[in-house]
């Protein structure tokens, strides 16, 4: 098996700028089952990186390693090294709660808290020790998520009273309110209608001025629209017949879609499988 990514390709046309997150030879296990094998991947600062690939290729699993969300799954284990700003995220001394405060996450299904719109945003900021003007932060975060105009008159209403697309933007607002440096998005548009999807995509374009974004998506058009870099993952049957995911190719998005180095990538982006 090859270890593609920027290391095996020529580096000159690849990742520019210093990486925020590095992934070195990472394998992820659920019990004895290996879900992801030997991934090398660097995430550059203030860029959007898309993870694409067929179901079961481990892209969401890998994403969840970056904020140690897999810690919650009994038996999940990470081998290799993931660093964030040169700190080993899986160092026993690192507090996972602290990691999640710097690396925010937006989930597949909108999951606002059963609280008011205002509290949905204020809660995260408060537990993260925000001491400033809360009204101002709520307004700024909602504006940042392109939701302010729609909800400014009903901040006291439940976050659950919003439509699905609005709920997802509320979740994004909640995430940017804690001012992380990296935002992980796990198929953020898969539960949304096309118009809401476009609004979230526009939002991602704006957010990358301030944040580094990693987005998992099933939608290849979405990856080509929003991402600066795209990583293509694939699944393969291992020695014992169990499937594991691995990184096939990681490059600038236009290269992945127009001039992929690997045949599997070519087949996937041209819709021949997956």
């Amino acid at each position, binding site marked *: 098996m090859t270890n593609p990514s920027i290391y095996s390709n020529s580096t000159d046309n690849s990742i520019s700028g210093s990486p925020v997150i590095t992934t070195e030879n990472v394998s992820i296990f659920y019990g004895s089952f290996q879900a992801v094998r030997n991934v090398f991947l660097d995430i550059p600062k203030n860029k959007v990186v898309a993870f694409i690939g067929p179901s079961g290729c481990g892209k969401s699993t890998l994403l969840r390693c970056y*904020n140690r*969300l897999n810690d*919650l799954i009994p038996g999940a284990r990470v081998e290799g090294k993931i660093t964030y700003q040169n700190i080993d995220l899986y160092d026993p001394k690192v507090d996972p*709660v*602290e*990691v*999640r*405060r710097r690396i*925010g*996450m*937006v*989930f597949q*299904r909108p*999951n*606002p*808290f*059963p*609280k008011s719109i205002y509290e949905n945003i204020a*809660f*995260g900021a408060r*537990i*993260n020790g925000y001491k400033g003007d809360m009204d101002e932060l709520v307004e700024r975060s909602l504006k940042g998520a392109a939701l302010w105009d729609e909800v400014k008159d009903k901040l006291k209403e*439940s976050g*659950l009273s919003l439509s699905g697309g609005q709920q997802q933007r509320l*979740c994004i607002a*909640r*995430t940017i309110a*804690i001012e992380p440096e990296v935002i992980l998005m796990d198929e953020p548009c898969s539960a949304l209608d096309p118009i809401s999807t476009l609004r979230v995509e526009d939002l991602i374009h704006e957010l990358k001025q301030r944040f580094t974004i990693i987005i998992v998506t099933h939608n290849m058009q979405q990856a080509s629209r929003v991402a600066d870099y795209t990583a293509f993952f694939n699944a393969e049957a291992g020695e014992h017949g169990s499937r594991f995911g691995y990184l096939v190719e990681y490059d600038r998005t236009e290269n992945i879609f127009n001039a992929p180095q690997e045949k599997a990538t070519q087949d996937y982006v041209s819709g021949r499988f997956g």
Partner: protein
Amino acid sequence: MSSQNPLDSHHQDLSSRAMDYTVSSGRKFFGSLMTTLVILCVAIAILPLGSILFMLLKNGLGRLFQDFPAVFTELPPPPLVDGGGLRNAIMGTILTCLIGSLISVPVGVLTAIYTVEFGQGNKLSQFVRFCTNVLSGVPSIIAGLFAYGVVVLTMGTFSAIAGGVALSVLMVPIIIRTAEEGLKSIPREVRQGLVGIGATTFQGVFSVILPAALPFIATGVTLALARAAGETAPLLFTALFNQYDARSLREPTATLSVLIYNYAITPYKNQNELAWAAALIVVVLILAVSILARSFTKRKVY
């Protein structure tokens, strides 16, 4: 050709049958038979409740209204004296239930929070759940015996505190179970969101999950209260009984249920009437609390 024939005839068969929309008489008969049977079973199930309510209203309502405020404000009279009321027993029931809740609500809710949020199916939380099931099956008189041994013998006196402890033993498993259900009803996505914004389990549970599960917990507490308010056996040798007002928590205390037990078996007509009135008050109280509990769950968020 020949291979198509069966298909053809089958098709014709279906189309001719499809024209007939009337229900066959056999099915109609079977349907009405089963409906009758079901209604009959419902009637049998409701009958005890109906007859209890009827008897209570018939025997208790008269006394309740005959000297209206007196039933609630006066003390029970000595034998062969007319009039009087249930003041001490009503106060005692409220007091013992209150003490029971003060003990069982924190213990029950915090236990549920441990098993659902922190333990998450580990050995200890499984063990706790098993104990809860055993505890909910313990006969109520055993709960009384426990409180007698632990509280009455230590304090050297029967008291409302001992009665409250006995009731709390019965209330705890009900509260644990309903609180667990309430906490589990909060979707996984919300918990993930909490983790995603860097909330500790403690912050998430107490700021978001517990408030969202509150309607369920309130239901559990009211159901447990309804159960406790009607219990007699655990109070018989813990709170005991008192002809007068208990002047402190460290004295024998009258309760409605024990009063019913004591007065129903006396040969005096006035005492018997008071027992009926007390029974009516207890049942109405439990009914009201149960209805209250239902209204809590209607307002649930999830």
